[in-house]
């Protein structure tokens, strides 16, 4: 899907009046207050619009990964987890590895990331 279509879907889910309100580089979670319900709705709409089969957890696998002790334990990413994160974000953004909190990772959930993610699912 092209970025404009993804932004249109996001704007529709979040009841924005104008799709131009969405900057493709900014986080839908942090900068546009996309809620967990919005996110699931967004994922379903993207699935319908893209014709691809995926679950919300595949679109943004971070939450699921953080429940897996192989990836995340005692409040920190394991080496295996960091490697998995690198694969998800490879060719999208370089990781400095310094701060990989959920809040920090949410910053990456932009229209541009979703376009990248959909191309790799």
């Amino acid at each position, binding site marked *: 899907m092209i970025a404009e279509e993804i932004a249109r879907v996001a704007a529709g889910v979040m009841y924005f009046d104008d799709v131009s309100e969405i900057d493709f580089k900014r986080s839908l979670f942090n900068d546009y207050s996309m809620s967990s*319900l919005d996110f*699931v*709705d967004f994922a*379903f709409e993207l*699935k319908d619009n893209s014709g691809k089969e995926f679950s919300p957890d595949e679109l943004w696998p971070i939450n699921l990964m953080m429940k897996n002790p192989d990836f995340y334990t005692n409040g920190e990413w394991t080496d295996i987890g960091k490697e998995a994160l690198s694969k998800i974000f490879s060719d999208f953004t370089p990781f400095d590895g310094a701060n990989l909190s959920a809040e920090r990772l949410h910053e990456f959930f932009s229209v541009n990331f979703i376009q990248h993610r959909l191309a790799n699912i």
Partner: protein
Amino acid sequence: MKALIIGGTSAIGEGIARCLAAMKYRVDFTYHSNTEKAKSLGEALGDDHHSVRVDLSDVSEVSKFVASLNAASAPDVLINVAGITHDALSVGNIGADLARVAQINFLAPASICARVVELMMPRRCGSIINVTSIASKMPRVGNAAYGSTKAALERFTATLAIEVARYKVRTLCIAPGFVDTPMFHAFAGDRRKDIIKNLPLREILAVDDVVNSVAAFVGGKIKTTGTTLYLTNGQSVL
């Protein structure tokens, strides 16, 4: 259209199954121990149905059943009817009894709801009915475990409703008073006449009274979600 009834061999479950089949639903159901009833009900529903034995008191069996539900088998309508009564004072070592009642009356149906609703959400339609009891709102000596598990299911259902409303999945609890079922006969024993004498309406509900409410909700004649419909014997439920 598919319906899944948890507890299809209870009197109310059977009534609902037959009603939904008449409404052209393909009706699947679970049962616990009444194999004979499951067989006869299955025959009445015709070839195009599926029944499975699930012991709701067994956490692993419930998990296995929940895991078996998938997009292809997902129902359009889910009805949790199964439940057990438990009449005992809340004094002393009640942990094991409380856990069993909670597992069957609350944790199992809530777990099944959670999985089914996940499958309904992408379709953006679905109806979930949990059969509870006016005992959820009417404390009575001996009904703490039963009433509190029914209250928990009503509370769960209300929250679930607001989480899935956007996806056009609607929920309803139907909370009957005394219904003319084997469960009531077992509960009342030789006190039946006294119990009915003390009811404001001096009558107990028929199974069809519950079934008709299910049909009205499923058929769209009751347009609500997250609420509890109290079918009383005249008692005030506030």
